[in-house]
């Protein structure tokens, strides 16, 4: 596997080495490297932005149970029910935004989740390296924290 992008050859060695072993065992995949992530990200956008429009609007399992056994009426509106994206719709001027709004809400949700999750896991992954007496993680941190003076 070619090391596109350069940079962190040292710290990804363990997993890369594992990937090399895997590719020897399983044969090289056309989804090696970043192509897998690109395809998976596109699939997520497609699911949230397009496939979700076909979703069933029937009550879900818990709502069904609540209706059947008689505690559905105890539900209260969420404090965030006035959110512009409440119920996976884009509220534009108070009117239902239709399929376009639902698609947009899905795409925004994917972007938001991605921002939070990638940020969080990047931190978790980096902290592990730092704790393990990491190699270039420290110098990289120093470089970014003091670029000015």
């Amino acid at each position: 596997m070619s090391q596109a992008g350069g940079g962190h050859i040292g710290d990804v060695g363990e997993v890369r080495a594992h990937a090399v072993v895997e590719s020897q065992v399983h044969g090289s995949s056309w989804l090696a490297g970043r192509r897998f992530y690109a395809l998976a990200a596109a699939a997520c956008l497609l699911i949230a932005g397009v496939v979700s429009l076909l979703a069933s609007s029937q009550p879900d399992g818990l709502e069904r149970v609540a209706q059947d056994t008689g505690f559905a009426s105890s539900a209260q509106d969420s404090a965030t029910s006035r959110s512009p994206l409440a119920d996976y719709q884009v509220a534009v001027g108070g009117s239902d935004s239709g399929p376009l709004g639902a698609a947009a809400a899905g795409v925004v949700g994917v972007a938001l989740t991605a921002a939070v999750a990638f940020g969080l896991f990047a931190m978790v992954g980096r902290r592990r390296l730092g704790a393990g007496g990491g190699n270039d993680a420290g110098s990289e941190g120093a470089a970014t924290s003091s670029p000015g003076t």
Partner: protein
Amino acid sequence: MHIPDGFIDAPVSIVAGAVAVAAVAVSLRGARNEVTEASAPMAGLTAVFVFAAQMVNFPVAAGTSGHLIGAALAAILIGPYAAVLAMTVVLTVQALVFADGGLSALGLNVVNLGVLAVVAGWFTFRGAMWLVDRWSDGARRSVSRVGLAAGVAGFVSVLAAASGFIVEFVAGGNVPLTAQTVAAAMLGVHALIGVGEAVITAMVVSAVVAVRPDLVYGLRVRRRVVAAAGQSDARIAV
């Protein structure tokens, strides 16, 4: 199975919130052994997939739908501690931005969908894979066998989440109902939804195992076990 505000009273919601905070704290530590700088994108991607897939409700019976929880899927793909974090991110975004699941019920939802479902899914997957290894030569584990184990884990994870709700409702439901009534209704419907969860979990895990087995945490753990052939399985299992 997102619980809205109002179903469960404040004391039980607060206890669940405390349990959820503790679980996230433990998972932040535990995930250090699961997430590397190189595997972080896969963890983020898994959270995004869970969010997207949860938008797609599929019909399960007349007038009832369900959607993927994704807890077992996440545990298998990125590890159980990382899965707790991924599910918590998804549930928090849903509650704060999309009003899906109540705000005061966020702790309840994290406990059910983000902790119980993850733990049940992970140990079911491990157990199923252990059985697969006993029945067959460990070196000849096929994609379909991993997929089967993932499917069983998905099914069990849904029942675990439903069981969490039953306990919470019995402890603090705002409408007096017998435990038996709620349990029968919840488990019945969610056994059906669990079949959908099993199919999707099996399909997605099989697909990733087929094209990128190096990205699947559930296989990395097992490989370590195989590599350390002489050592006891129990030491590495948990």
